[in-house]
């Protein structure tokens, strides 16, 4: 099939960027979009043109490295998938497909389609864990965890940290990302001792990093490749409110 890729090119964080159109005549519909980009990049490299920079690694939707805005939507038109699993047969023959980096204040563009998502790591550093020292854990079956609870915790823990939720949000909020971690750990007995502190610290860190506030548009949920739902934001709000009302417990 034939497609035109309209790609955002930007040399680095300082220079202005613009769209450049590339025409591809020999696209196999079974290729993924990123394989089509690889293909374009090989052509560019062989002719001495700088290839299009983009982040990608596992190519199976789990590492969270990839993330493009495809035709205006983070990770593209198919719900429940990352950019790396998006097959070209999604698009019609002759289509023009627009590729942009995730655009949000907290993710500065590094080059072309690569953005800096280190703000998400800094939010995790504020409390996205259980503080347990290696060697101090009790026997694993000491604390039973109901099957349904464990499954719900895993639903939230599936977050791959791609940042699509932030890119889709009109406020640039990281509420789905933060809520997923707070919900995952808040459901499990192991997460209880730090629950109050975690709720306060992660939300404060997200504010510090310049992520916006959540006004429940729900755009995040619709682009999340793992199908994480708005209920985790409700869980985050509950934990945060409870923590805020209990001074001295943090």
């Amino acid at each position: 099939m034939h497609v035109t890729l309209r790609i955002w090119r930007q040399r680095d964080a300082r220079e202005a960027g613009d769209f450049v159109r590339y025409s591809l005549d020999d696209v196999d519909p079974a290729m993924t979009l990123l394989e089509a980009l690889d293909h374009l990049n090989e052509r560019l490299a062989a002719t001495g043109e700088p290839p299009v920079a983009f982040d990608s690694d596992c190519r199976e939707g789990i590492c969270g490295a990839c993330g493009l805005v495809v035709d205006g939507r983070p990770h593209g038109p198919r719900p429940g998938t990352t950019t790396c699993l998006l097959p070209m047969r999604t698009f019609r023959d002759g289509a023009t497909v627009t590729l942009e980096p995730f655009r949000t204040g907290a993710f500065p563009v590094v080059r072309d389609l690569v953005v800096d998502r280190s703000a998400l790591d800094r939010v995790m550093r504020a409390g996205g864990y259980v503080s347990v020292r290696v060697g101090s854990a009790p026997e694993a079956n000491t604390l039973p965890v109901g099957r349904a609870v464990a499954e719900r915790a895993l639903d939230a823990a599936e977050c791959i940290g791609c940042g699509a939720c932030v890119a889709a949000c009109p406020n640039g909020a990281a509420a789905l990302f933060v809520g997923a971690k707070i919900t995952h750990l808040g459901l499990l007995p192991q997460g209880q001792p730090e629950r109050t502190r975690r709720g306060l610290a992660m939300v404060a860190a997200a504010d510090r990093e310049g992520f916006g506030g959540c006004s429940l548009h729900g755009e995040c949920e619709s682009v999340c490749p793992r199908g994480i739902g708005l209920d985790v934001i409700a869980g985050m709000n509950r934990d945060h409110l409870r923590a805020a009302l209990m001074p001295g417990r943090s």
Partner: protein
Amino acid sequence: MTTVLAARMPPGPLATRWERYRNELALIGPARRRLHSVLVVGTGLAGAAAAATLSELGYRVRCLVFHDSARRAHSVAAQGGINAAKNYQNDGDSVERLFHDTLEGGDFRAREANVYRLAELSARIIDHAVAQGVPFAREYGGHLANRSFGGALVSRTFYARGQTGQQLLLGAYGELAKEEAAGGVTVLARREMLDLVVVDGRARGVVARDLVSGTLEVHTADAVVLATGGYANVYFRSTNAKASNATAIWRANRRGAAFANPSFVQFHPTCLPATGEHRAKLTLMSESLRNDGRLWVPRRAGDDRRPEAIPEAERDYFLEHRYPRFGNLVPRDLGSRACKAMCDDGHGVGPGGRAVYLDLTDAAHRLGPAVLRERYGNLFEMYKHLTGDDPLRGAMTIAPAAHYSMGGLWVDYDLMSTVPGLFVIGEANFSDQGANRLGASGLMQGLADGYFILPHTLAGYLDGARLAPVADDGAEARAARADVRARVRALLASGGRRTATDFHRALGRVMWEACGIERSREGLTKAIDEVAALREAFWQDLAVPGEAGELNQELERAGRVADFLELGELMCRDALAREESCGCHFRVEHQTADGEARRDDDRFSHVAAWTPATPGHAPTRLVEALEFDSLDPRERSYR
């Protein structure tokens, strides 16, 4: 005369050896730990676990990762599970049995005492992961659930759907984040190690490239830990992530660290077959699917009906026939070889007739599709996204692909390489998996090395090392940086017309043919010349656009391919020198009448470790003899 490598194995009975050794290892007091710096390269299960644990102990840790975040390391993609000898199923499991299965699964080419230690530590890994909040699968009563993996007759695999690696990695990443917050670790992202700095014969740092600015940085420390993963991407097509590469361990080899069993690479039987030239990354379908899935091919060669149209009587469930005791759950080496044999005989299906069916319809009838979705939901989704087919209707089409490298830098019992002060953990070392890794044992090894072994053995080294201070701009560091700079310039200067990917593709074809599931003297001899010729062409006709002082992914790729072109040759040399078949290393000249691997314990019950080539000299093959006190190496039998 053969040079012999000493693993510096402590004496004593296997069952208590590690405990005794730990009691004798030197301790460093908390006040002195703060004075020691450790550099960890890589943030997968092994690297993140080691960095976090060392920081908890009070060492000053710096951690480099070439991704934009520590959480992206390729451990994240491990699907099926992690083994541990908990015996929660009451099916007779024990440390002894896990040890035995792992050693036998590796076809008796691993170091016995390391494997025993691994089995012994396995249970504590699960304890720790649960305490971190890793949401493993549970039974209705709230206790941990298990499933079976290849090469075992017990259920000892702990799992979180088909994303166990992700959940374990996020546990380790969380622990790392906690230590970053506490100030014990600094994680530097988008840094790629390109050389090792050796001072007075000891590893004292690395040269790394800041991938955004292109700056070459020197990072020095009292000890260096490599946790940089495996090199299955040498085959171009593999289940590894796109950026997984051998550069860190290969550059360490060039600086003197012996490289053990480079030809021991595992081919995973159940991957999505390659379609077209463009696909390098082959998607794995977890081995756990073989709990419920059955492999088959049409009995009639060339039968091109859709799988659901082929009646039961005309299907050959080849693993169940050939290996009645283990059936579909044979170890991966046997599974891949059986698939290849079926395809070679004309029974293959899918693209080019190089695939077989993995069929879950029996299980769907028995358990219902909902149960299967609960167990493997994310795998089904992935299959559907990539192929457009529903795996519960008809059968999945799967084929073997390069997956995991058992080979890696040689390490002693302390996990230290032949360069003092250079420790190597996880898939990057060679130690525990022998000639074939059992499913769900890779995660176990990475975490055992990182959480429970290295943090203690490292103290033993630091205590006795008497290290002088080393400056980032010392003579050795400056020399290493100059070498890297020259290499980067050479990559950019070749001014040719072929891309690094194109050379990589060509290398992959040579390696797959000659050093793949089957190897022969003739094929390997030819491949050594072919790889050398490719390498020469690479440096003459390579095209790398752009500059050194910017984010340049094509330059990154070219550097990695340049190293694969050197490692590929060593892999062929190693496979040629090992005149036997064992595990994944199958030499057609050495097979039994049934077509199984024929080991030669008299001549090859050893680890082969290669010192670097020097101008005018081929690499030297060193040997570490393997001795087995606990069980007699026997011919593996899964029939």
